[in-house]
């Protein structure tokens, strides 16, 4: 499978529990993005990585949200003490490198992780 892989595809958890969502980007893709897709809200930017560093974390909704990327590959989005308003589909996307350190401008999306907080 050459596409972006996300796990779990579905997660149901109780309010107050922590969850981890994983994203395995396409091999060789240097940029990795996390978005949240809620009904009627479109795609809400959360964070993006260039290699292992995160130049822009401005979209993380609160300090309960964190993300890391190791080895320039797999990324984990962690939500601590989940709340019902965290229920959404969390999408990951990766992008290949372009010339001179730029990005090519095309995002390749995973199928998403649907999180339901009861």
């Amino acid at each position, binding site marked *: 499978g050459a*596409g972006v892989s996300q796990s779990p595809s579905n997660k149901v958890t109780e309010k107050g529990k922590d969850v981890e969502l994983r994203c395995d980007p396409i091999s060789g893709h240097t*940029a990795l*993005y996390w*978005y949240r897709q809620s009904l*009627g*809200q*479109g*795609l809400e*930017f959360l964070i*993006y990585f*260039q290699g292992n560093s995160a*130049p*822009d974390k*401005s979209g993380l909704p609160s300090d309960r949200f964190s993300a890391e990327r190791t080895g320039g590959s797999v990324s984990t989005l962690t939500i601590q003490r989940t709340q019902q308003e965290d229920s959404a589909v969390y*999408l990951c*996307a990766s*992008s290949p490198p372009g010339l001179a350190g*730029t*990005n090519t*401008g*095309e*995002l*390749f*999306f*995973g*199928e998403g992780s649907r999180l339901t907080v009861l």
Partner: protein
Amino acid sequence: AQRVTQPEKLLSVFKGAPVELKCNYSYSGSPELFWYVQYSRQRLQLLLRHISRESIKGFTADLNKGETSFHLKKPFAQEEDSAMYYCALSGQASGTYKYIFGTGTRLKVLA
């Protein structure tokens, strides 16, 4: 502030009719604009980008900097065009690789 606005949540047209999906943006600089599409039970994927100036599946989009718009157009809609369409903006030209998406427009092409 960077913002992408798609004013229509749902657009229904008959097969063979022209379609225009509206997108307006707010960005202080030179943005790059994209249209992404999500067909039923498929992943979100790139449809077209303004710098390519190409037509994909009969769709075109022209960047109008004066009106800050990037509307998506197709002269004759097909049933297989039914999908969710998202307009997106990136500030790559200024070194910002964050992509901002609109709230999306669901296009339904009726037989």
